[in-house]
């Protein structure tokens, strides 16, 4: 007896565990007959999950939280029993902005505080000369990309709402917009940063892992009501995704995983570009400079698959910091409850693999994150846009 499932995804490398689970047969081995549906916008993924056209989805972690809180849209409680990836985003800047930042930098070029301070000097100089404000693109209002860009630049004294323009741009349009000068920089997931570098129109300034040591990125999302009615199916999905994540993390399997992901109806870009991402070994400048980091994208290792409610609390804190959500103990509880380590453990046997992983966010600026005192934590940040 197999269970038919429709699962939505956006063509990004961090959908890897989901795609490999299906195309490598791990889902079928769990009795799941999955149809993967490639989507063009997060709005579509969210809506189709909400109204039941999808049983599950590859979803931005903050969208799962926003949906559960009813922010910006209908309130549909979402559960995330599996974390598809930690980190994986990067900030790419135009050659002109890269040169301007490097001319102003005082410190290591991979030190986000040094680049953020340099950016603030670039912004000040532009304002003095009467130049247009810089435009930064990200993928969605409720996205890690939005919060990561804001966190980084605000640490250097750049107000993301006043000093620059921060705009939403669909990932497939980012590279063109950078090339045409419509945007000066963007924060996006793989493969788009690498594509900009390969085309010679951008430099990867930061891996997001420079800014946050561990940042929940995409989750496997299901409606809470559906998951309560189908606990066995949820457990089977978690096991299939977890097996796929373990497969992808083995270096000897990366070429095969990259080939699976490169299929036109999946991510649809060169296997070679995808493998660089999986390996955490990226070309960061058009001149061929390479940068390797074992923290660039974590799919299964270091307990990446196990949802961590502290991560959900951090994302909620960003929504509060930037005026998307009001602060309340109740909302914090709802946000944390979206991430379901209990479902993960139930599927994989308690205590789950990775249960001992550190809870830290590991941000480069500000005090250590305290999930139990959002207000106290946010008080440490000078630039914010709290709701009155």
């Amino acid at each position: 007896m197999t269970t038919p499932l429709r699962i939505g995804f956006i063509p990004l490398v961090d959908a890897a565990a989901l795609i490999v689970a299906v195309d490598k047969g791990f889902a079928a081995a769990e009795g799941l007959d999955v149809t993967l549906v490639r989507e063009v916008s997060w709005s579509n993924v969210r809506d189709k999950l909400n109204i039941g056209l999808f049983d599950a989805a590859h979803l931005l972690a903050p969208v799962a939280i926003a949906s559960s809180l009813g922010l910006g849209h209908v309130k549909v409680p979402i559960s995330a029993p599996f974390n598809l990836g930690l980190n994986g985003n990067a900030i790419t800047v135009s050659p002109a902005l890269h040169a301007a930042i490097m001319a102003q930098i005082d410190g290591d070029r991979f030190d986000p505080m040094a680049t953020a301070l340099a950016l603030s000097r670039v912004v000040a100089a532009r304002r003095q000369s009467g130049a247009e404000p810089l435009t930064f693109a990200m993928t969605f209002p409720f996205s890690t990309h939005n919060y990561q860009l804001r966190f980084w630049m605000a640490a250097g004294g750049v107000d993301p709402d006043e000093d620059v323009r921060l705009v939403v741009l669909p990932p497939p349009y980012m590279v063109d917009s950078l090339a045409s000068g419509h945007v000066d920089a963007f924060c996006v997931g793989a493969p788009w940063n690498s594509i900009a570098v390969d085309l010679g129109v951008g430099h990867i300034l930061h891996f997001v892992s420079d800014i946050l040591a561990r940042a929940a990125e995409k989750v496997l999302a299901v409606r809470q009501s559906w998951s309560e009615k189908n606990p066995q199916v949820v457990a089977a999905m978690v096991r299939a995704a977890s097996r796929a994540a373990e497969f992808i993390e083995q270096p000897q399997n990366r070429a095969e995983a990259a080939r699976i992901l490169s299929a036109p109806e999946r991510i649809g870009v060169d296997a070679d570009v995808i493998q660089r991402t999986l390996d955490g070994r990226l070309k960061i400048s058009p001149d061929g400079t390479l940068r390797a980091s074992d923290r660039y994208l974590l799919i299964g290792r270091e307990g990446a698959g196990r949802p961590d409610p502290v991560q959900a609390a951090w994302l909620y804190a960003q929504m509060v910091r930037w005026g998307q959500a009001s602060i309340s103990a109740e909302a914090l509880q709802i946000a944390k409850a979206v991430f379901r380590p209990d479902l993960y453990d139930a599927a994989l046997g308690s205590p789950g693999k990775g249960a001992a992983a550190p809870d830290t966010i590991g941000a480069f600026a500000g005090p250590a994150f305290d999930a139990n005192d959002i207000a106290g934590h946010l008080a440490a940040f000078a630039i914010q846009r709290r709701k009155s």
Partner: protein
Amino acid sequence: MGESSPKIVIVDESPIRAAILEEGLREAGFTGVVHISEMQSLLARIYALDPDVILIDLENPSRDVLEQMFQVSRAVRRPIAMFVDQSDAASIQASVDAGVSAYIVDGLKKERIKPILDLCISRFNAFAKLQNELDRAKSALEDRKVIDRAKGILMKLKGLTEDEAYVLLRSTAMREKKKIGEIAQSILTASELLK
């Protein structure tokens, strides 16, 4: 903004579908309709037009750009998503099925958006039907060409008349439980290989 005719923006990269929708809206008395097909600087253009209703097709990645409008604090007017109306599940389902999404500006009454959305859904469905028929007609035309060429090959190789060649194709198709077009295509492929 006149009470009678809200300003409607259609965001759609398909000019034909947009034209079909625009025509329908005009016929229904909605005169203030603007079509945007260029996605560059989409938000700036929408702010300049200052519409009451925005209609966008679900194949358009720029839907995510529109979501930003709920966040921009400097915007004078704040559109809200149609889907926020939790009471109307059927119309949400119908519009997603049809492949369209509507955003309405805060304050526009629900009774006024309903006929616009309904019209939009029916026109999107009509377009999809048209597209299907067009695809079918195209493939029928292709089949016809392939069959004609296969008949020609059979006539030449086996010394058959056109009618005899067709009968041979049809009887083979029936025996093998395939379409005549498929049998004809395999004859073309075989003759290419044997050239």
